[in-house]
């Protein structure tokens, strides 16, 4: 396993993005939120890899794809520790940390079953009222969805 992992870690991409330090087991959520399920470029990912910093981690490498701050911050809910490393010609050209955005649109389901967003075809929208504890105030029903109740659409 160690051999495989070393191999994976050193597999470089020519152009694209490496998303490192994803909390273990959240790789699939990140793939989903960033819509990498539908990306036509090469996507490599690994989960439960050894990490000196976090014990276990996940990593994703996407060729020929770069992410703007808006997209990067979308994964704040599942991978607040992630780093986005931009690669051009095998060289690191940028490093960006995830920041919790002020608003979260369309990716989280409101936990209130009587909220209009759960009944009609209305895209969900939240204001992040507490960035540390991840409290999301629904723009429609005005109820707070807390971290433990967060479900992704």
């Amino acid at each position, binding site marked *: 396993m160690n051999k495989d992992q070393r191999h994976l870690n050193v597999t470089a991409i020519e152009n694209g993005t490496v998303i490192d330090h994803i909390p273990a087991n959240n790789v699939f959520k990140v793939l989903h939120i960033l819509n990498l399920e539908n990306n036509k470029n090469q996507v490599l990912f690994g989960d439960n890899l050894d990490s000196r910093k976090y014990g276990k981690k996940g990593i994703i490498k996407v060729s020929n794809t770069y992410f703007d701050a808006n997209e990067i911050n979308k994964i704040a809910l599942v991978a607040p520790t992630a780093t986005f490393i931009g690669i051009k010609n095998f060289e690191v050209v940028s490093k960006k940390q995830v920041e919790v955005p002020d608003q979260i649109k369309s990716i989280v389901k409101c936990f209130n079953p*009587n909220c*209009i967003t759960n009944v*009609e075809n209305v895209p969900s929208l939240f204001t992040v*009222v507490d960035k540390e504890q991840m409290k999301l*105030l629904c723009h*429609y*029903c005005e109820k707070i969805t807390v971290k433990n109740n967060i479900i992704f659409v």
Partner: protein
Amino acid sequence: MKGKNLVSITDFSKDEYLRILNIAADFEKNPNQKLLNDHVVASLFFEPSTRTRLSFETAANRLGARVVGFSDSGSTSVKKGESLKDTIIMVSGYADIIVMRHPREGAARWASEVSSVPVINAGDGANQHPSQCLLDMYSILQTQGTLDNLNIAFIGDLKYGRTVHSLVQAMCNFNATFHLVSPEQLKLPSSSKMHIKNNKLEYHQYTELADIMPIADIVYMTRIQQERFSDPLEYEKVKNSYVLTKSMLEGCKPNMKILHPLPRINEISEDVDETPQAFYFKQAENGVYVRQALLAAIAGVK
């Protein structure tokens, strides 16, 4: 305020509240002012209501406006599966202002985003009921002579009582101190408490009604509904502990007034009705003046 939506009480500023209350006082003195002769008000009640619908429609009529709409979605195309979005887009092509009540929380906000005319929320599920809130404020101002620095006690179902949530938010602008009396299961939601904390104001929680009687300037009663309890035994335990009777009024402040959004079931016993503290029927009447003020201000004629 012309063309503005009123979905949540926080959509209006403190100055706008005061302006509405001011206009309402003018309508109380002189209710029949035909300022909206050329207006059509759509009154869309996706769930039944007596007071709110009748007082909005009375307000519109006293202003000379025509009212179209329905009082029960059972007789509309909603029953055929029409989306709220489609209903609202269609109606906003017919009417100048939409007044709506809907059983789902957030429905009015969504409607205001798809409508081409202003939307007034007349209640969205357990969420907001801003016109009730303004008439509550009007009644507080009328009975206390001020909105500032008051001790306001809320009794009963503080979790689902939408009038409570709106009024707590609004009174945060006026340096109020909140006294919250409810059964454990029906405490004020954290979002409302956060609103109080963010405004650096105080709230105190109680389970006994008697505790707040000597300190309250306003006692705001609400109904505890049986359907809020998953366990019928829990309901039986608490249902009689939040009933206000005449004898409990001894020792209250001389300026104290009792408000209730109505309908009342048994939470205020009838012997309270003739006490000087009872204000709930006058409060309901005030609803017409306040709703006249809202319609007139949003239509841009006041």
